[in-house]
Every structure is written in C-alpha cells, then in structure tokens.
C-alpha cells in the first residue's frame, strides 16, 4: 500500500519476527515496517484488535513493538540499526520483557 518516494539511501537489514526486512538508514522501526508491507505491529491488550503505526510522531502509541527484547517501545521513535530484532506484540506485554 505504501511505497517510498525515493528508493535510495544506505541499506540496513533488520528482522521482524525473525524474518529479514530491508530498511534504509534514517528509517524508524515503524516506517521500515510500513515500507515492508507489514500491516500491523501489535494486537491490543483488551480486545486483541490489530493495530498499525498511526501518527508517526510519538503521540498515539499505536506502533508499540518489542525491540531487541524490550517490550512496548514506540516504533516510530526508534531509528533502525543493522541487525536490530523487532517483534510484533500480541495482547498484553509480558513483564520482564
């Protein structure tokens, strides 16, 4: 659905749920997931509804993901880096993760 305006830049590889995703330096986790066509980044703690990044500026908290083992990071505020392991979240976060 989304495509990059300029498909240039230095390539960076991250993984999302163990699958390799091609990103660019300067992407945030949320934009890299959107560009890769991933349609949701988490399901909600109450109803389990799927959620995707929305505001992309740190306000809405829709883009929560686990980054390198730390849960509930705001994907739109975390720049990607080589080898970063991103996991989508299902329902409530597990304490200690």
């Amino acid at each position, binding site marked *: 659905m989304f495509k990059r305006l300029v498909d240039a830049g230095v390539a960076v590889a991250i993984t999302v749920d163990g699958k390799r995703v091609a990103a660019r330096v300067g992407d945030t986790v949320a934009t890299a997931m959107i560009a890769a066509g991933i349609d949701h980044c988490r399901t909600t703690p*109450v109803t389990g509804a799927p959620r995707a990044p929305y505001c992309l500026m740190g306000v809405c908290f829709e883009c929560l993901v686990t980054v390198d083992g730390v*849960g*509930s990071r705001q994907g739109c505020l975390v720049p990607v880096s080589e080898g970063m392991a991103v996991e989508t979240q299902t329902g409530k*976060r*597990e*304490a*200690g*993760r």
Partner: protein
Amino acid sequence: MAASDYDVAVVGGGLVGVATAWGLAREGCRVVVLDEGDRAVRASRGNFALVWVQSKGLGLPQYAGWTIRSSNAWGGFAQTLKEETGLDVSFQRPGGFHLALSEKELEGRANILKRLHNQPGIVDYKTEIMNRSQVAKMLPDIGPEVVGGSFCPLDGHVNSLRLFRTLHTAVKARGVSYLPSHRVETIIKEGGEFRLATAQGEIRAGKVALAAGNANMRLAPMVGLEAPMRPERGQIVVTERLRPFLIHPVVTLRQTDEGTVMIGDSKEESTDPAGLTLGVSATEAERAVRLFPLLANVNVVRTWSAIRVMTQDGFPIYDESKTHPGAFTVCCHSGVTLAANHALTVAPMIARGALDASLVAPFSARRFHVQAVG
C-alpha cells in the same frame, strides 16, 4: 419539592454515599444523593482498591471484626450488584501480602501482628508470617531482597472505578435521585424534617446521612455531630497493561483484572489534590522494582495523587445525633473494604432510624472525648 419527597438525604456521592444510598433504597426508602460536581476532591476516583483485612484494628480491636464482617460479605455484595446491573466489579479474595525487604522490616511486621492479636476481644484473622521460601512459592517473581512477609487469606481487591460506576448504575436503577452539583451549604432541622440548603435550592428529607468524606468535618456540627478528620495525600503510579503475573495483591502493589500494575501507599500531610511529588512516585517505583524486579523496564502510563478520607485516629465514625434525631454520620477511610457493610448493615440501621449499638457503638465519635466515654 414537597416536604415528604425523600425519606433520607445522603450527603456525598462517593463510594460511601452511594453504597449507603443503595442499601437504603433496598430497604424501601425514598433516597436522594446530594453530590458535588466533577471538580470535587473525590477519594473514590483515586483509591487503591484493596478489600483489606490484615493490620486493621490495632488500637481498636472491634475494627478488625467490623472489617472482617465486610470482607466476608463482599462476595455476595458483588454478586448482587452484578445481578442488578450486569456489571462485574471483579472482586477477588486470593489472600494478600505485606512484604519485607529486610529482617528488621519483617521483625517489625511480626511485632505489629503480635500486638494486634494480643488485644482482648480481637478476632483471629489468620495472618501468618512467612519466610522467603514460603512467600516465593506463592509469589515466584519476588526479588532477591525480599526476606519474607505476612499473608492474610482474607485480603482481596476489586476494580474500584468499576465499583463506583456500578453503584451509581445500581442506585439509579432503584430509583434513587442523584443530584450532582448540589454541594450542601447548611443543614437545619425544622418541623420534623431536615432542610439542606444548596445553590440549586433546598432539599427536604426525613433523615440525613452524612457520607461526605473529609467534608463531614464541616457538616456534622450542623446536626449536633462531629467528625474530626485529618486528610492525607497519597500517590499512585500505574503501569501499562501486563500479562497476569501477580495473583496475590501486596499492600503497596497489585495487578488489576485489566493487567495494569498499581503501585501506591504513600502518605503525605497535604491536602492539595493537584500536587504530585516526583520524589514520592520515584520512591514507590524503586521499592516496587526491589519487590518485583521484572517491573524494571515496564512503562509507567499514569501517576496521580488523591486525598485520603481519614478520621483523626484512622477508625470509622458511625453516629446518630442526640440533638437532631434522624441525622447520622457514615465516615471512614476504607470506603472500598467497608462498602459491603455500609450497604448491607449500616444502611438498614439508618432506614430503621437507630444504629445497632452492638455492632457500631465502638465507632462513635464520642471516643475522641475521653471523659464522655463510658
């Protein structure tokens, strides 16, 4: 408003007021609840939601029995509310802990319980001191600094915001008139009825029940009663929703039915409900992480402060006026824990027009006057 429109006017629409109003309506009384507006300083929206027994009653052993009575009635109370409203207040009584982070703390805890249980007339509520390994069997996520704690099988908790909503729904369904933005300015008794003056006009009722929390201090003397209070501020830290890990509530920390962890129990001599002291929140959070290290990376989503309703000695006040028959005080700190008593025991007494001394005599404000007691 015709003079006979209400049998009882309940002053205060917080948990104590609506629980009492619900109980009165069940007795067939025509009830009006006079409440302040949205800006009211309201403990019912800021409390910690424990239905708590352990530690209650040091200095007044009858308070332990009174608390246990409510704790035992709570399950049926919650069930009745569910049948009437379809709302589940998530009452759970898995037993609760008080945890110690040093041998000295554990010893202090054991001493308090010993003093509590040594009082004549105390009800045994089966609190036991547990060592670290006993605690760890029930709370596997405790941190290395936890040396032990006390456990009481009667302790529980509830979703108190939902309780507040549920009681309001229940009183409405029972035909109670709820009048917000009706701060009571004065109360007089004239011609056999009470006249309560508000900016919205006068309300008349045959009886009056003062359930206005700390404001009872101002209202009680108008009807020949007294309610010496010392309001106290508490602060609460709330985390994001987490998968269930904490089955048993701890006195300073509990996981709600919805997954959030509430961390609280601070005490400050302040009456400013808007003030939040970062140092206090930080101390609460630091201690919570020492109790349960897995909370270290969890996100905090809210903090708030609220003013505790607190009588001068911390025990409830239930009184009936000698000079103004038909006027009662229903005043206490533990509006959640004692909600079942207020609804099922105190309200029927008010409906009958006389408090049952065998149950509530120890809680008269006369105790504040040493010479008058006896």
